[in-house]
């Protein structure tokens, strides 16, 4: 079983997906405007990178949900207006402090809620920390992995969660936007994140049990 990624056609999607650093992690890259059900045949894990045009995702949302509901893993990164097309996700904006790392002694508000999650055997929590634009309230029963507390009048919420209740598969949702920052050539934390996250995702894809079309589970 294999890993696919959506391509939004921007230069940063191009650099991150087709550049030599990560290309071998993706078994298939699908231009989002051409996404068709047959593209997901044989795919067990689909990454929706950050800053894919949300109009396109809204147009294709049924296909994406059905993909997860077939027992697969859907990973959704940030700045995609996921709350407008992904069931159960609620978004609240927060003022973005792009510069927290310049403040002497500043401590980012990120909290590792679920350090036992298998993701963190591969990905260092420190490499998930950079600025954020808002927080998500996950659907009931979902598992928050990283969150930030409320601040003043602004609500707290999840920056990364895993939802295994809304569909028969798994949906991992992050507010993080590593494809944009890595592909633009700045913010080294985003490159460190992808360096560990993508091999983890590839490994997840290859070890995942995917339901056959008749509903019976089969090993890849």
């Amino acid at each position, binding site marked *: 079983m294999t890993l696919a990624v959506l*391509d*939004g*056609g*921007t*230069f*940063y999607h*191009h*650099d991150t997906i087709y550049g030599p650093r990560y290309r071998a992690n993706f078994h298939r890259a699908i*231009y989002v*405007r051409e996404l068709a059900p047959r593209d997901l045949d044989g795919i067990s894990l689909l990454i929706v990178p950050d*800053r894919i*045009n*949300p*109009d*396109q995702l809204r147009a294709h949302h049924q296909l994406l949900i059905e993909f997860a509901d077939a027992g697969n893993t859907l990973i959704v990164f940030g*700045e995609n*207006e996921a709350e407008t097309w992904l069931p159960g996700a609620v978004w609240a904006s927060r003022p973005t402090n792009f*510069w927290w790392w*310049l403040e002497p002694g500043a401590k980012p508000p990120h909290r590792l809620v679920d350090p036992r999650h298998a993701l963190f055997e591969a990905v260092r929590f420190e490499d998930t920390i950079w600025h954020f634009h808002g927080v998500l309230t996950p659907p009931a029963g979902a598992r928050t992995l990283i969150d930030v507390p409320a601040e003043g009048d602004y609500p707290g919420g999840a920056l990364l969660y895993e939802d295994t209740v809304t569909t028969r598969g798994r949906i991992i949702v992050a507010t993080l936007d590593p494809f944009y920052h890595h592909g*633009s*050539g*700045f913010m080294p934390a985003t490159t460190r994140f992808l360096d560990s996250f993508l091999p983890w995702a590839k490994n997840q894809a290859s070890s995942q049990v995917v339901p056959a079309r008749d509903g019976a589970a089969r090993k890849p």
Partner: protein
Amino acid sequence: MSALLFTFGYRDRAMGSFAEHPAAAGRIIRRDLYDFDDINLDDVSVLLFSMHADQRFLAARAGRIAEFVRNGGTVLANGHIAYPFLPDIGAYTPAPGQSLKHLRIRRVAEHAIWKGVNEDDLTFRRGVAGFYGRGGHQPPPGATVIHTVGQDAQPVDFIYRLGAGRVLIHGGNDLWQYGGGDSTALIAPQLIAWLFGDSI
């Protein structure tokens, strides 16, 4: 004549501020990029493409864009060019390092868009270098290079003529993002004057 500023599915505050800039006097109109095929360009003088534009989509329309320029139009494209949607531009080459010697912006030609804009205000944002541009494109022969980055002098901003029109490439974050409490606040109004003026 008006300018079309192409949006890409989600709101971008800097883009909104630029479209509504008083100097533009309502002449900058926002349109969804994917409406491009349905837009009559006869009454349009400028096309503005963000760094977030779907270049794969634009590359499939490169002929129409080039024809628009040859007929006297102006195109501003921001970001790195990954797909050939404009003629005669070489590949993007990132700066070879992240230190200041690789990231310092230098002005190599004076230009009305950047008149009075301090080079250091382009190089640094809150003391950090690299936001304005981190690499360059090989410009076409005859292009006017305005700014370079780093000791390799890679072209970040350049303008070239194509037929009766002109193309401005800014190989970094969208030009309309600049305008904080320093001299970069001059860029937006001066860019608008250039977009609707005749000079190169």
